């Protein structure tokens, strides 16, 4: 266990594996836009989340205690973060860079990270998912997008997360392509591998035997994970 953080008590809280259902989950929201911060904060609160909203990746890392230069700020002690939702395009550190930093941290890599972006670019979505993002929400963010976040909170029992393993924002995918028109030959194993492992298995799915699709990997992944899991 790395004990390099200034506030070790917070680190112990982060490892606490007994989330009480009666407590509201705490979301750290990151967005450089004031308007968007206000909206996401309200969306989250109305969906019964506790919210901390910050305006940059830097501040998010500081809040988590991951910023090398500054240690965790006073007053945020003990507040475990259950999910991080971040904008992609931000000056300084992008949401993608923030995602990477979080996934590189042994303390915080288990925290689900959701990316928001106004740009519906498959390559971008894929990069984020490959890096371990749970989901990618196309802005403007709606109430239904935020309600889905609850699915990512149940990671520890592994139960809730399975049904949403293919939980890539379907609304966005339907914009990108028509799933039903892809080739039928995805009969190879990947669906079983994804239902076994509770944590991300996108890499194992996408390295499955050659799938003759020109489509981007999140869509392949979605097809594989939803074969068994959804109806």
């Amino acid at each position, binding site marked *: 266990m790395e004990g390099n953080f200034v506030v070790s008590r917070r680190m112990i809280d982060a490892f606490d594996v007994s989330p009480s259902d009666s407590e509201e989950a705490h979301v750290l929201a990151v967005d450089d*836009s004031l*308007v*968007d911060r*206000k*909206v996401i904060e*309200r969306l989250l609160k109305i969906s019964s989340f506790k919210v901390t909203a910050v305006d940059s990746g830097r501040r998010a890392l500081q809040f988590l205690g991951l910023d090398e230069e500054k240690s965790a700020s006073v007053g945020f002690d003990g507040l475990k973060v259950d999910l991080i939702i971040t904008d992609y395009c931000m000056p300084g550190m992008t949401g993608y860079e923030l995602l990477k930093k979080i996934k590189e941290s042994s303390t915080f890599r288990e925290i689900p990270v959701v990316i928001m972006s106004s740009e519906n670019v498959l390559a971008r979505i894929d990069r984020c998912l490959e890096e371990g993002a749970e989901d990618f929400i196309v*802005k*403007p963010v*709606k*109430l239904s997008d935020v309600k889905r976040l609850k699915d990512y909170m149940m990671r520890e029992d592994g139960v809730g997360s399975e049904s949403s393993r293919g939980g890539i924002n379907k609304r966005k995918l339907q914009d990108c392509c028509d799933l039903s028109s892809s080739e039928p030959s995805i009969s190879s194993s990947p669906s079983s591998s994804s239902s076994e492992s509770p944590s991300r298995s996108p890499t194992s799915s996408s390295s499955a035997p050659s799938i003759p699709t020109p489509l981007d990997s999140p869509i392949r992944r979605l097809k594989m994970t939803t074969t068994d899991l959804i109806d």
Partner: protein
Amino acid sequence: MDGVVQLQKQLVDYTASLFHEGFLDEQFNQLQQLQDESNPDFVVEVVSLFFEDSERLLNELGKTLEQKTVDFKKVDAHVHQLKGSSSSIGAQRVQKLCIAFRNCCEELNTEGCLKCLQQVKHEYSLVKNKLETLFKLEQQTIAAGGSIPTL
């Protein structure tokens, strides 16, 4: 009681017209759903932030485009922000113009950008006017004892 009914009808009709004419889109509805007794001024607050933010950005855009050498990256960054915030509150016409604006930036077209800026400024002031009128109507309706009908 007639007065309240009249006001409410006016409010409903006016709101509907804003959607019909494309000033506002579905996202504005989303914002209205987020308003309740615990947050009765949510929409006004967000829209006010949008006004402040937009005015700052439009100002910056004017300045940036006036420079001898135009920094198109900067212009694009500002337009991107404006596009984002207008999208977040449902100001559809402004958002759409921002998309065209970004194309001019990509083409490094100063003339085009200046035209776009004029258009965005125009649309922005239109939607600002409309929203301020809407909020006034809401205030009047509430003051008369009515409630804001949800469409």
